[in-house]
């Protein structure tokens, strides 16, 4: 056992879900049936599984977008129920959605600044930081463009820049390449890999693609609201 491995064992996981159950009241649908999952610092975990198996629900619970019916989500060992959830979503995690969710009336530069409002970054710094992030994702020439005038791949790059706005420790990505052609998909994967390496952040990604999953440190397979044994 190396020194690095022993340190890792001593530290709690960056994010941990314990026996998570999620039942939706309408129709008594059990989306998750006791899922436990840990993501360590700087780790890339891919979640795969058929549609409707509970992947997105798990991501939403881990990201503090929704509350579990039972079970606990811990961030750096502290249950999310004891944290300020708004602040957790604003500063500790960054979301990348399949549908990008960019605000159509704002430019790329302005969209990237949106999380900086709750993140507490001073107003004068916001455009400079947003510009730097857009340069980092390869869009320095598109900062003044609205989402409608950007290509699909460019929109996802803006969404990734936005997810990094408050320098989170973890990116939560829900099929970020699901709407992209194979070339754009590879570009986004390369970008995420580069960002993860440069920024030492963790990445939890839902994907249907075996190629994408193959790039992960660990692959978690789900079915019918449960994690399948490796």
């Amino acid at each position, binding site marked *: 056992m190396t020194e690095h491995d022993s340190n890792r064992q001593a530290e709690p996981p960056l994010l941990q879900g314990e026996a998570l159950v999620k039942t939706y009241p309408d129709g008594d649908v059990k989306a998750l049936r006791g899922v436990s999952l840990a993501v360590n610092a700087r780790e890339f975990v891919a979640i795969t599984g058929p549609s409707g198996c509970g992947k997105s629900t798990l991501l*939403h619970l881990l990201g503090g977008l929704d509350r579990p019916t039972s079970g606990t989500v811990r961030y750096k060992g502290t249950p999310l129920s004891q944290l300020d959830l708004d602040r957790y979503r604003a500063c500790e995690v960054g979301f990348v959605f399949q549908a990008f969710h960019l605000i159509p009336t704002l430019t790329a530069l302005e969209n990237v600044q949106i999380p900086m*409002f709750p993140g507490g970054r001073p107003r004068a710094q916001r455009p400079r930081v947003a510009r730097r992030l857009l340069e980092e994702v390869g869009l320095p020439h598109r900062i003044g463009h609205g989402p409608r005038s950007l290509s699909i791949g460019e929109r996802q790059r803006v969404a990734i820049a936005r997810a990094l706005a408050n320098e989170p420790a973890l990116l939560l990505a829900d099929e970020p390449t699901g709407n992209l052609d194979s070339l754009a998909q590879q570009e986004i994967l390369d970008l995420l890999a580069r960002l993860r390496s440069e920024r030492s952040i963790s990445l939890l990604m839902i994907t249907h693609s075996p190629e994408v999953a193959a790039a992960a440190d660990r692959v978690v397979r789900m079915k019918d609201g449960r994690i399948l044994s490796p």
Partner: protein
Amino acid sequence: MGYVRLIVRNLRGRPARTTLTVLGLAVAVSAVMLLTGISWGFERSFLAIYQSRGIDLIVVRAGISDQLSSNLDQNLEQVIREIPGVASVAPSLMDAVSFEEANLVSVLANGWEPGGLLIDGLRLLDGRPLDASDDRQVLLGRVLALNLDKAVGDAVDIAGESFRVVGIYESESLFESGGLVMPLPELQRMMGREGQVTGFVIVADGAADPRALGVEVERQVPGVAAIPARDYVKGNLQLRLARAMASATTIVALVLGSIGLLNTMAMAVTERTGEIGLLRALGWRRSRIILLLMGEAGGLGVLGVIGGTLLAISGARALVLSPTSRGFIEPNLSPMILGIGVALGIGLTLLGGLYPAIRAARLEPTEALRHD
């Protein structure tokens, strides 16, 4: 980017919705300003008849609801003049005439004594004052002369008789400027009311209390009511009707405006449910989202009241210039009325935006994100 810029970008980013909302609000605000202004202008113009001449009391037949139906003996003037505290008194016969060729009905015709305190309250713009010996001579108010296209020296047909215009006058009161004045005996003859007047106006001497003087006049002259000028204006039937109409229409305009605005704001927020869900997902607190949406509502409110004020001012100008309302309507768009309109407009918008904003902020992020 700060809040203000974000609010401006959100409003500019949806030009059609912003324009329609601002337009709806502007119409509601201008309706409130104009209708209240017309009602207040009516009252102000009526009060100016008395205030501009320092008149303290109006004497009419007791129990009448409309001044035109009052009928008193002209000889009562001498009795009233003798009452201690009366500085001056003037008889007045008032009636309404029509000029159908000019589409003017109910034009105020005043029969006054040449050289009396009533006629002295007019400012002669052209020609000469009336003389006691004048026969078939008339003074026209500025607005009536304009409406009839008459000048000094022209003949004018009044109730089937031909009169010559000897002067054009201006008055503090729009009603008087939109009417005409002839010697009292002339109007009495024309209307078949010889020796009769509609009422008297009294100026109290400096030491007398007008209200106490009114009581004394009523005691000494049975069958009359001596009413302080301001009370008389407040109790005037036509004025009360106009005020009631204006209030009712203002309330309707306000209710319709509020419903329209509430609907528009609710639609605008519903349309952006996904966007609001995204803001929640990115860590925006509920209070921050309410602040943003209320800021947008406030922005719409400011634009709406600016548009509404401009509409009201243009509408008032159009009413004053329009041949059908010229001489009857002069909206009083005082700073107070504009202030009421602005306060109502902004208040209404914020109120209209509050419920949808709270409802939107209460949505769970995942629920709201599903709307996209």
